[in-house]
């Protein structure tokens, strides 16, 4: 078995039994990155030397009997998490060369538990995008390809496209991501791996470059549901540095993966049957419901009457928060400065932000500025906050009837670069099934469940009650067992 083929659970056991050392495991992944990253472009920054040193230190801790739960596990970190002493770009030119003097809470906890960081993963600029094509550091190649059109360059999804591609191509065993409107679940589905956005407040946002603060949540990617559960346990927990982080105990999520779904009520939202949905997605959804029924769950039709308004609501709330959060990039305290010799301060701000932000980020900042501006605040922003409240209420009412909800993760399989990315609104429709969970603050897990006729992976999505990731993991693991998804991308380490 090639070391890059391990699951995280399998690698933890192999390290514990001494079958492999952390240094060997890390070196195998460094070699995979050296071979694949020039093509895949999943990592913006590779920290190979630091990783090998960290792996040696990990072996030493294990020898002393001080192994943590992720001791020696090689991970990629989305380049939106501040990592002390390691460049953090947020996929933007405006942060090129930015070396954070502090570490995000999520990455601090992963290190505390023994994880080894191999690099910083590519992403859409400031996490704004669904294709990874808005990154100032180039697009990311999806490791999967179409059976009948193998030359087409498929996108990995976004915004956490580099994280998903790195895990799928076996350059790392797992990765961190963030999800504001679907940025973990959509790329997980496009790359044939698992990914979870936990409940809002489950993971600290401290040290994560902010996009839309009331929607942003960190979460893990891995190749199995159980591996996601293992990573999330390390990432989650109360942090006094984030006033929205939840002060409640972190359960053993991995244990929940073994729970039976017998007797669980699984909701099927009627509004998710959207016009123009590809037949293979409808088919996969029905298949997923059949699997859960066979495992003893009860399928219940439900209604989320305002779900159809989730996307336009998101595209008011998120840009509004972004326009405020991104005001800090002013060319004064950190990051890029663009100024002429005779620039005054205002000209310095305007030139810096025009040169440093890409077109999609500029668009969202301007939309956000407009919807918050005097005279339009009530018509757009306040209205969106009220519709958001209705969307959240729909889910609260659903939880009196069901324990979890099953839906598709995305309305299509991975698309090729240049397909449908000219019109911003068309690109936004990628998030149609994922964005409701962000607006309502709910946990959502994407599980690979099948292939489309072109041989591309498709994902199913499990949504759950606030802070009930355990049921979400139980349902996701049941689908994973039934789907027995064994297909592999053509581009991967050890292939």
């Amino acid at each position: 078995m090639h070391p890059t083929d391990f699951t995280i659970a399998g690698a933890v056991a192999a390290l514990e039994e001494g079958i492999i050392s952390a240094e060997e495991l890390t070196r195998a992944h460094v070699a995979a990155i050296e071979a694949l990253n020039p093509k895949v472009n999943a990592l913006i920054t590779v920290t190979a030397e630091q990783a090998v040193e960290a792996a040696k230190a990990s072996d030493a801790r294990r020898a002393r009997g001080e192994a943590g739960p992720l001791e020696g596990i090689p991970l990629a970190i989305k380049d939106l998490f501040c990592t002390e002493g390691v460049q953090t770009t947020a996929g933007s030119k405006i942060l090129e060369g930015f070396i954070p003097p502090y570490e995000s809470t999520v990455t601090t906890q992963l290190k505390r538990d023994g994880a080894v960081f191999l690099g910083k993963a590519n992403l859409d600029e400031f996490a704004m995008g669904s294709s990874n094509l808005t990154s100032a550091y180039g697009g990311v190649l999806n490791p999967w390809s179409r059976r009948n059109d193998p030359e087409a360059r498929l996108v990995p999804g976004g915004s956490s496209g580099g994280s998903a591609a790195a895990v799928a191509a076996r350059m790392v065993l797992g990765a961190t991501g963030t999800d504001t409107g679907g940025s973990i679940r959509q790329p997980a589905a496009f790359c044939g791996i698992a990914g979870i956005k936990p409940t809002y407040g489950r993971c600290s946002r401290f040290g994560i470059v902010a996009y839309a603060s009331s929607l942003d949540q960190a979460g893990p990617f891995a190749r199995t549901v159980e591996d996601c559960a293992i990573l999330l346990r390390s990432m989650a927990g109360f942090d006094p540095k984030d006033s929205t982080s939840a002060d409640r105990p972190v359960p053993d999520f991995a244990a929940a993966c073994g729970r039976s779904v017998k007797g669980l009520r699984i909701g099927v939202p009627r509004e998710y049957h959207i016009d123009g949905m590809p037949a293979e997605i409808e088919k996969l959804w029905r298949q997923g419901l059949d699997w859960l029924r066979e495992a003893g769950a009860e399928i219940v039709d439900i209604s989320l009457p305002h779900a159809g308004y989730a996307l336009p609501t998101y595209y008011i709330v998120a840009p509004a928060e972004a326009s405020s959060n991104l005001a800090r990039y002013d060319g004064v305290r950190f990051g890029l400065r663009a100024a002429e010799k005779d620039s005054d301060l205002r000209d310095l701000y305007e030139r810096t932000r025009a040169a440093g932000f890409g077109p999609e980020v500029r668009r969202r900042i301007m939309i956000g500025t407009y919807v918050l501006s005097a005279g339009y605040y009530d018509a757009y922003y306040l209205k969106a906050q009220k519709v958001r409240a209705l969307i959240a209420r729909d889910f609260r009412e659903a939880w009196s009837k069901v324990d979890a909800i099953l839906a598709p993760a995305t309305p299509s399989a991975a698309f090729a670069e240049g397909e449908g990315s000219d019109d911003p609104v068309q690109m936004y429709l990628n998030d149609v099934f994922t964005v409701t969970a962000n607006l309502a603050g709910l946990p959502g897990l994407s599980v690979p469940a099948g292939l489309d006729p072109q041989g591309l992976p498709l994902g199913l999505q499990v949504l759950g009650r606030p802070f009930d990731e355990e049921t979400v993991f139980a349902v996701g693991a049941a689908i994973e067992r039934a789907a027995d998804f064994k297909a592999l991308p053509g581009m991967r380490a050890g292939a």
Partner: protein
Amino acid sequence: MSLDTATVRRVAALARIRLEEEEVARVQGELNGILGWIEQLQAVNTDGVEPMAGGTPEGIAAMPLRDDVVTDGGQAAKVLANAPDREGEYFGVPKVVE
């Protein structure tokens, strides 16, 4: 509601993003495309609905209060480490006061 070119310029100025003259028409088209699409929210009846301001699911947790004490500080070197321009322990900017 459709933005005219003057409003597009005003929004860019409020956002402190320099907009070249030749970009105005394209940006106007893009912004109007997005705003036209989000206009559909006006069809939702929100009478008497309290706006949802944060991301925390309702009824889950109240924002905690912490003791009002200084917990951090005295890190000028770290704070200034990424500055594009600095003079001593200050960020450097173009002259603001004549």
